[in-house]
């Protein structure tokens, strides 16, 4: 009898479940509630902001970008900036200075980081220990403190302008910064730049041709040396042919400090050193992990196939290590870019310092300025992570 009762319920007929226990209904309710809560929150925030701004007599909007800023900046290598420039220009100068710092910082951090990372794996005990303590000390001390140490602890205690330290071809160093040789471009200097670009383009085409030829005939072409020769040789040739249009104006020590050359402000030097050495400590760990991640069997197998150590490293080990290294490396680059905002602490005129700092204090347009600043950093982050995802997809292990 009971068997009959069971059979009356066909399998297609869904069991009756309390509405609350239906996952779909439940999910819908939770999401609707969350959405309503968020909308309510944003509405309240916007509403309050409008009331508070009206009370403070601040007109919202981006009109202030066209107003004259009225303050000077001591560092703007590429963009023309005077006190009569607008707040819009201030934004671009800030972004420019952030990017200069980021690019140069990334460059040096990568070099130091790779050196230290390889050194940590060295069989030489002293080198490995020095690299170990470099990493541990640098990454366990706050970056802001390191910036202060370089800025107030080291650079500020250098001798004054009158007795600068002569660093030879690097320039003159004193408490007011580094007086570096200034390149002077005469007519025809642009040829060198074009020759450089042409060198890169030709190398790229030769590389494609060499790859095709190797696929077809198995013959190799010394592409690295050829490329190096082209990229360095062509500009050199252009330099000689156009009659050496680039010269350096060296700073000369004078009674009132070095004259000539270009002055690199100490804020920039302190930030540059601190950012690159700090980030290098993290990059070193990434590099070490990447090298260790490549199975020992890979190098053994490539030797067994008859590859010499050089090609084995270049064709087998490094491509696999890079697959592990690149994603965290990109995020370190990103960290460096974001950390460059600490410039505000020692008044290097980067985006945060001049735009979210000085410009904000002068105009009071807190919402607009902070929104612009944060969105700029966000855009930099998103672009970098998009690149990273693309690279990851390209390099990822293709399995079966």
């Amino acid at each position, binding site marked *: 009898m009971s068997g009959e009762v069971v059979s009356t319920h066909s399998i297609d007929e869904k069991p009756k479940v309390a509405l609350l226990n239906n996952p779909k209904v439940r999910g819908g309710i939770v999401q609707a509630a969350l959405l309503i809560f968020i909308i309510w929150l944003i509405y309240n925030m916007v509403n309050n902001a409008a009331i508070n701004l009206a009370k403070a007599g601040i007109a919202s909007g981006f009109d202030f970008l066209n107003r004259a800023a009225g303050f000077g900046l001591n560092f703007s290598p590429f963009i023309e900036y005077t006190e009569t420039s607008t707040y819009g220009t201030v934004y671009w100068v800030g972004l420019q200075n952030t990017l200069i710092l980021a690019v140069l910082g990334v460059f040096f951090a990568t070099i130091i980081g790779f050196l230290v990372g390889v050194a940590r794996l060295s069989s030489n005990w002293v080198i490995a220990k020095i690299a170990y303590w470099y990493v*541990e000390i640098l990454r366990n001390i706050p970056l802001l403190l390191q910036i202060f140490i370089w800025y107030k602890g080291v650079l500020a205690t250098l001798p004054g302008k009158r007795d600068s330290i002569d660093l030879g071809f690097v320039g003159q160093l004193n408490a007011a910064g580094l007086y570096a040789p200034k390149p002077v471009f005469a007519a025809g200097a642009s040829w060198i730049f074009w020759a450089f670009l042409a060198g890169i383009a030709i190398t790229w085409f030769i590389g494609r041709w060499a790859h095709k030829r190797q696929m077809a005939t198995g013959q190799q072409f010394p592409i690295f040396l050829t490329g190096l020769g082209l990229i360095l040789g062509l500009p050199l040739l252009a330099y000689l042919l156009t009659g050496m249009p680039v010269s350096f104006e060296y700073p000369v020590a004078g009674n009132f400090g070095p004259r000539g050359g270009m002055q690199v402000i100490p804020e920039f030097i302190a930030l540059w050193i601190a950012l690159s050495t700090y980030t290098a400590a993290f990059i070193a760990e990434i590099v070490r992990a990447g090298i260790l991640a490549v199975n020992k069997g890979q190098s053994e197998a490539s030797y067994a196939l008859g590859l010499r150590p050089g090609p084995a490293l270049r064709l087998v080990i490094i491509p696999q290590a890079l697959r592990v290294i690149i994603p965290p490396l990109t995020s370190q680059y990103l960290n460096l870019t*974001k950390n460059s905002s600490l410039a505000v602490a020692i008044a290097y005129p980067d985006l945060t310092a001049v735009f979210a700092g000085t410009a904000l204090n002068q105009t009071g347009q807190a919402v607009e300025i902070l929104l612009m600043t944060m969105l700029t950093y966000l855009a930099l*982050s998103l672009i970098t992570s998009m690149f990273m995802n693309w690279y990851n997809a390209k390099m990822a292990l293709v399995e079966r």
Partner: protein
Amino acid sequence: MSDTDSQTALHRAEAGALEIAYVREQLVEPLPAPASEVGVIGWMRKNLFNGWFNTLLTLFALWLLYLILPGVLNFTIFNAVWSGTDRLACSDINQGGELYEGWKGACWPYIGAYFKQFIFGRYPDPELWRPILVFILFFAGLIPMLIPSVPFKRETIIYMLGIFPLVAFILLTGGNIGYNGFLLPGAIMADSELKFWVDYLILTAIICAVVHFIVRGMDGDSRRPIILTLICMGLLGVVLFIASVDFGLTFVETPQWGGFMMTLVIAVTGIAASLPLGIALALGRRSDMPVVKLLSVVFIEFWRGVPLITVLFMSSVLLPLFLPDGVTFDKLLRALIGVALFSAAYMAEVVRGGLQAIPKGQYEGAMALGLSYWQMMQKIILPQALKIVIPGIVNTFIGLFKDTTLVSIIGLLDFLGMINLSHSDSLWATPVQAITSYIFCAFIFFLFCYGMARYSNYMERRLDTGHR
């Protein structure tokens, strides 16, 4: 006597009988390895001078050490000044002091004179026992929690998460928080502490009613949810009540806090707030519900994409704008909110890594057992996932701990802020003042961060079950 024994005996007898002089009966003692292969010399040959390249590297490293070590040791120890009462103790003749010209060394008495400020900020002297007691209570809970062999782990965790924060809050601020009502209009009842509690009861009743109607509206049994709500509101009420009791402690407002104490307060509160928030965001990011997922992704990516300093600017400049008129937040609290939201996003990504590392079979197994989502997460997934990501959590905490120094930029006097402030004191103004204080600060930070990293390494090895 067995057969084999008798045979051996026979052999011995034969050997003894033969007694050939040139056959040794014992093995020769092995010669010691050549001096160039063992001991210090052998070790050096193997690790430092095997091949011309390594020799060059070693020489280069020794040159590097020669450049760095003597300078550092001379500055911090041998040339340093250890006692004195003012700047003259640390100045050379040209600067009006007694030291020889060109002297460079650390000025430790300045650190000694400022030590109290560096640790406690401008906390009033007669009340100093309170932060000290908080320090003691903190480490009294932390150390048993960190040493694996100490029993009563569960009780310690309850103490650290429940009792300690409340006690620390009351000790540091002074407790005795005054509440005003927040629900009933002033016409019915004037603002007072009593009105707050009346409002609180009304609020509890409203929440219970809402829960009841929602659950009933969906044919469910509303008893359990209501009891849960009541327990939560009750616990919250008890906490609020204790915070409002007058223990006779003087009120110390947060602008008087500072130094290393503030650094610890920000770091510990930040981590305590960001861990649950981060877990929630990580679960949200892996949720099937599109709206929840989208909101979590946007939240996480936004905070991870901007620098902390702009977050702090935002919390100190924009947060007051977004709040209703008249509601003001303490400066420290605003910084705390910024730090907590920021690190929650990072924590979320760490936890997500752990969630993704759990094999699918664990989820399927849990579901096959008929566990609900929360049961599955609580009993099966999160315990495993969190164990995997302990190093990541510690790394995030170390990062947060270092990043607390950024609050000095928005004008809070944390450890670094206090040190920068002390530079304006002309009593100790010397060229070495800045670097001395920074070395001290760096040393303290290094001790804490390196210690945490080592501990997390140790825990990682201990918890490693070997199967992955």
